[in-house]
């Protein structure tokens, strides 16, 4: 009981000191509440399971993009990487079994991410520049691997274990993803390597000047991003039993929306894993709720686009407001000091005369 109240207080403090997180939680509750009240089937146990299933994929992408944006970069190739992993896992499941195929696919994606991170740090280019190239390149590789067809499993029951219901609301896939979140969260908050990622995002010049190498954090971030993309692609591929080389491009928009709702700043160095989870849940509530209300897929994209624009406007607006406030503060300080100085001078002159 005591530890529980302790944890609660800590959580409360964390939220109180972090307006972005508070905003994210508020938004999540609002979206959930809206659909729970307007649709009688939304607030049920089955829906929770469905949302957790969606969370498994989108959460990974949201997490990956959150880490990239914390490091001040963005990984545009995430959709292609996921599509490649999906193609690989579906192609190899028949011959090697789902587990081996899964490992191969995730290992490939992680290696691709790692190489990307290395090149970004070695060439000192912005990640968007390189990842827009790898977006196309990986798409080509995926097309090549799939022989330009939609690949399919022969036995659709093989990968059923991945969405088997466990502990009420979860499946092995979503449990694995939650485990990933916990591990990455611990890594980001309590290890030196994790803090380096925050450092190169928030203040890159200062971090480099103080002796942090650019390579290590970049490689770690993009390796995690590749791992998340790969795992997400594998889960999608196994669950549906089919994979398309040109699919999964929608993940980038949904993941970016999730990351920004979760409170990352485009300037880097802010946000965290809890924010990523809440941001993803918000997007999931929206997605699932819209499906419940029979909304076509393009409308979901429309809402996500509007949501992203609104969040960006909010962030940019608050930044401009902050800048103005800071400038006003500085000007007030200067005025006050000048007044004080003149006052002192006048007093000194008066006493000198007296």
């Amino acid at each position, binding site marked *: 009981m005591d530890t529980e109240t302790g944890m609660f207080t800590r959580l409360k403090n964390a939220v109180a000191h972090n307006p972005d997180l508070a905003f994210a939680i508020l938004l999540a509750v609002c979206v959930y509440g809206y659909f729970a009240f307007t649709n009688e089937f939304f607030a049920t146990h089955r829906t929770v399971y469905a949302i957790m299933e969606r969370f498994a994929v989108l959460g990974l992408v949201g997490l990956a993009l959150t880490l990239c944006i914390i490091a001040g970069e963005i990984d545009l190739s995430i959709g292609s990487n996921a599509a490649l992993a999906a193609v690989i896992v579906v192609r190899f499941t028949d011959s090697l079994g789902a587990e081996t195929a899964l490992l191969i696919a995730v290992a490939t994606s992680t290696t691709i991410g790692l190489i990307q991170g290395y090149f970004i740090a070695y060439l000192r280019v*912005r990640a968007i520049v390189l990842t827009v*190239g790898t977006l196309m*390149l990986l798409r*080509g590789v995926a097309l090549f691997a799939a022989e330009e067809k939609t690949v399919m499993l022969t036995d659709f029951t093989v990968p059923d274990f991945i969405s088997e219901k466990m502990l009420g609301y979860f499946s092995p896939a979503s449990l694995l993803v939650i485990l990933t979140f916990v591990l990455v969260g611990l890594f980001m908050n309590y290890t030196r390597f994790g803090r380096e990622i925050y450092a190169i995002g928030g203040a890159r010049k200062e971090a480099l000047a103080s002796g942090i190498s650019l390579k290590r954090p970049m490689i770690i971030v993009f390796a995690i991003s590749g791992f998340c993309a790969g795992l997400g692609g594998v889960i999608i591929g196994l669950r549906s039993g089919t994979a398309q080389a040109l699919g999964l491009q929608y993940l980038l928009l949904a993941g970016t929306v999730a990351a920004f709702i979760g409170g990352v700043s485009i300037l880097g160095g802010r946000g965290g894993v809890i924010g990523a989870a809440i941001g993803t849940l918000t997007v999931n509530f929206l997605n699932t709720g819209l499906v419940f209300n029979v909304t076509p897929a393009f409308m979901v994209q*429309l809402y996500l686009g509007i949501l992203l624009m609104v969040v960006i406007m909010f962030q940019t607006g608050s*930044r401009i407001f902050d800048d103005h406030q800071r400038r006003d503060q500085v000007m007030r300080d200067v005025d006050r000091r000048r007044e004080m100085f003149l006052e002192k001078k006048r007093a000194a002159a008066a006493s000198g005369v007296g």
Partner: protein
Amino acid sequence: MNTTANVYASASPASLFNRIIQNHSPIVIVLVALFLAVFLYGMVTAPNFLTLFNLKTIVRDAALVGIMAIGLTFVTLSGNFFLLSMKETAALSIIAFATAMSAGYGFELSFLFTMLIALAAGVLQGALIGLGGNPIVVTLGAAGLFFGVASWWSENLVVSFRRPHGAEWLGSGSLFGLPNITIAFILISITAEIVLRYSTFGRQVYLIGANRAAGKATGHENFSMAIKTCAIASICSAFVAIAFSAQVSSAHVNYFSSEFGSSGDMTILVIATVMVGGNSIMGGFGSTLRSSLGAVFISTVDNMMVLHGFNSGPRVLAVGLMIVFSIIVFALVRRGSRAQE
């Protein structure tokens, strides 16, 4: 860059070779040489490659992507990276144009209507970018928005209008043996190059792209520049959409997605064109001529691979390799000058 080019031109072949050896690292030389070798080999062995008809085909294929890339080059040169919403702007425009045409408004009015919509789309994005939003994220959101609006407007159906219509001359007409769209491409690239080189606006684009702080200090804010350049890019996409719609007499939101051409989706192909042309993504260096040539180059490689009988997989792979290759080579060549943003 200009001075080195002059030195290259005036030097004898032996000293030119020496200069290349001295100025560039061995990796760059080997990469470029390897690429040239593969390119020349493919060119010589491809059947029917070196014919006038095929040359015309190459330029014609390059035209649509090239016009969009010219528009995007303005954004890139002004230091605002690139727009991820090129194909979605085109999708919105093509629906607008086809809807207006099928309602019987005639070519001129439909053209004007489409351009106004594209202008509004460009100004919206430009204003958000100019206020300090990140171009990538803003245009990613705008892409979702435009695509959603276009799908909702057309109810995700094909909008078609009957032949004969007033836009046929643009889609399938030709002049002096060249298709009109090729002529439009050539005219637009010449105009854009003249604007960039000799007009005040063009010089401002370079100034803001090369050094934003200096631009701000001399009274050239990025706010109005972002709006102008994004509007140019959107209008170029709208023009491409109109030309394409005029050709096929119909419109659907997915025309510019993965089904278009061979090399994946249009946005990435356009960005690839700008990059392969050798424009600096950080801004301030490059020209629209480079983008036009980049479009012709990508189209040449694609054409060569088609003639060799490759499927879409290897062709997309080749374009991807070309982008990554150009990123690596240009980063290595320019190392030290603009190493950090």
